[in-house]
């Protein structure tokens, strides 16, 4: 694909690898925030090319992984209602709730459908005016604009049988929470490029300066990631901690003003529990009071779900970069992509699933 393949060029990638080796004098631990970056790093074997001691810590940026168990259980409860058409992104279907997932609810007769865009769910609602249609609106600042647009359109067109189960999460509060953790080992961040293409970079200089960490806005192709790592190492070696944009072809400082205006209208900031991590203040979005009538939680009264997490799963430590996936005792044994105990083993962006898929060889040989 044009403007994409160029950024996988092996010769240029190896030149960047050489430059990283040339500037590195000691060990550094940096976190790539986004699950898409984790996927790309493992998929292309980028971490195997870095100098010894330059460690990539995989961050909490997989939206599927951090969606709270309570929200999954609410989704299962809503999807099980007769007449409901429950629409979701594909990789949410296998995420375990307290014992079940959307696949098993579907096989028990629920009408669960995979859509690629929330607007497809809105179209389904218009085609099925007699049935409640619910879209599972999860994700970071990246998926939020499309979800906001869908609710906005639902109100504008008067599609009353449509509602959204919202569990949006935000990156900057998560970075702060990671840095506040007493066991934090992170010395720098590769910020998530596509989050910044929506929200801009305005929130990051304060974080870089408060916690004394370089933050480099980074893309997703091999060259993007290597350039992000290179700029980060250069800053670390020089003792600097600034915001840098290594993904200027997609990210402007101001972000996308139209998307931000839509987000401000449809959503409001709320506290959010992150699966495996816990409550982070002001780290999520819920529907604003103007759109409350489209809130599936209100409409279906699912406030009383009880949750129970697998006692074996240590995904919280993985998500905070305190544990590598294969260091978990259940990894590849009780917990596999076929039978996941935690969400990090489900999504292809989840750190455990990425390790299982691409690195089982190394783990076997250790």
């Amino acid at each position, binding site marked *: *694909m044009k403007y*994409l393949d160029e950024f*996988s060029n*092996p010769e240029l*990638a*190896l030149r960047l690898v050489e430059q990283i080796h040339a500037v590195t004098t000691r060990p550094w631990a940096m976190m790539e925030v986004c699950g*898409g970056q984790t996927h790309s790093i*493992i*998929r*292309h*074997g*980028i971490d*195997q*090319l870095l100098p010894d001691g330059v460690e990539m810590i995989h961050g909490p940026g997989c*939206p*599927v992984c951090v969606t709270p168990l309570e929200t999954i259980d609410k989704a299962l409860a809503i999807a099980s209602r007769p007449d409901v058409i429950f629409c979701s*992104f*594909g*990789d*949410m*279907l*296998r995420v375990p709730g307290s014992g079940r997932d959307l*696949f098993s609810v579907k096989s028990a007769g629920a009408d669960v*459908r*995979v*859509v*690629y865009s929330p607007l*497809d769910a809105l179209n389904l609602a218009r085609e099925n005016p007699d049935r409640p249609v619910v879209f599972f609106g*999860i*994700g*970071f600042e*990246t*998926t939020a604009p499309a979800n906001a647009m869908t609710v906005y359109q639902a109100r504008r067109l008067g599609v009353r049988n449509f509602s959204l189960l919202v569990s949006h999460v935000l990156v900057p509060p998560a970075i702060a929470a990671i840095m506040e953790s007493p066991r934090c080992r992170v010395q720098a961040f590769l910020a998530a490029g*596509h989050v910044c293409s929506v929200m801009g970079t305005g929130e990051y200089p304060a974080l870089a300066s408060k916690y004394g960490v370089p933050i480099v806005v980074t893309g997703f192709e*091999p060259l993007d990631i290597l350039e992000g790592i290179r700029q980060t190492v250069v800053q670390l070696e020089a003792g600097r901690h600034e915001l840098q944009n290594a993904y200027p072809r997609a990210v402007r400082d101001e972000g996308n003003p139209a998307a931000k205006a839509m987000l401000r209208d449809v959503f409001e900031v709320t506290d959010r529990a992150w699966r495996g991590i816990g409550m982070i203040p002001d780290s999520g979005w819920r529907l604003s009071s103007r759109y409350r009538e489209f809130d599936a939680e209100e409409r279906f009264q699912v406030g009383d779900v009880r949750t129970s997490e697998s006692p074996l799963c240590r995904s919280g430590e993985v998500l905070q970069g305190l544990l590598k996936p294969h260091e978990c005792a259940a990894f590849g044994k009780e917990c596999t*992509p*076929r039978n996941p105990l935690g969400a990090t083993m489900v*999504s*292809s*962006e989840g750190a455990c699933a990425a390790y*299982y*898929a*691409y*690195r*089982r*060889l190394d783990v*076997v040989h250790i």
Partner: protein
Amino acid sequence: MLDFENWTCPLPLRDTPTVVMGHGGGGAMSGELVEHLFLPAYGKSAELTDSAVMPFPGGRLAFSTDSYVVKPMFFPGGSIGDLAVNGTVNDLAMSGARPLYLSVAFILQEGTPLAEVGRIATAIGAAASAAGVQVVTGDTKVVDSGSGDGVFVNTAGVGVVPAGVDIRPARAAAGDAILISGDIGVHGVAVMSVRSGLEFSTAVTSDTAPLHGLVSDILETNTDVHVLRDPTRGGVSASLNEIARAAQVGVSLIERDLPVPAGVSDACSLLGLDPLQVANEGKLLAFVPAADAPTVLEAMRAHPYGRGARQIGTCVNEHPGMVVARTALGGTRVVTMPIGEQLPRIC
């Protein structure tokens, strides 16, 4: 050829344009469906018996069956009818057999337009004719609306295996060259592009094709072909994992050598899928001793369905039962067996 698009029956099927429960009842309506819809599509006369009796050329018999539930039933480059014929023909061909006879069984949901059934039957007749196999027996059942989903097709096929041919997964051996007959991931992307909820525009069309001619040309090289496999559901990844496990060998792929056309890699990038896990319907994998690889590749490339043939990897003694790819940047990754359905990623 009958045009079922604007199809009208000379003897109306009891005045109904759609499948009704009576079409599966075994009575007059069933008879009319067979006589006026299926037989003309398959190019048959009306002499019907409970079982087909055919001449058999002797030797060893290959027998295979498969059911087809693809959604949507019509997609760029083919239909459930093409798949039903080519899928079973190819399953036979992968053991080196020359396919001869097919059965075709339909499970129809009441309410399905007969024109649709007609289009599928026509596709089956045309595909069978193109593959040089005969549809010799069939069956039709009708289920209540809500019990099925449009049209399900089952085909079974028999073929003969030439003397001296021994092709099966367990014969894969370290040192084998692994060949693919052409571009991968094409069928899966074509079907996904028209699947409800995922529609996207692409120039990619299904590669569905009968492969026994290509197999026959490969066998004529008189090389010692160890394994043939058509990497359908689960893609190249599932097939290679199955072979690696069956033979307890390692499979080593060179990612740069995988023939992934631009339309497939673009769609996979957008949907977050691995082209190695996307279905093919007209491609085969061949495991042959390294010394035979140039001869076999030459024969494959001379056949219309093998023009894009190339080597994508080798069989090794290391990591038995596992498939490992060397990435373009020089790293390695394990290529895993897909778990279930392909799930498009959130972002």
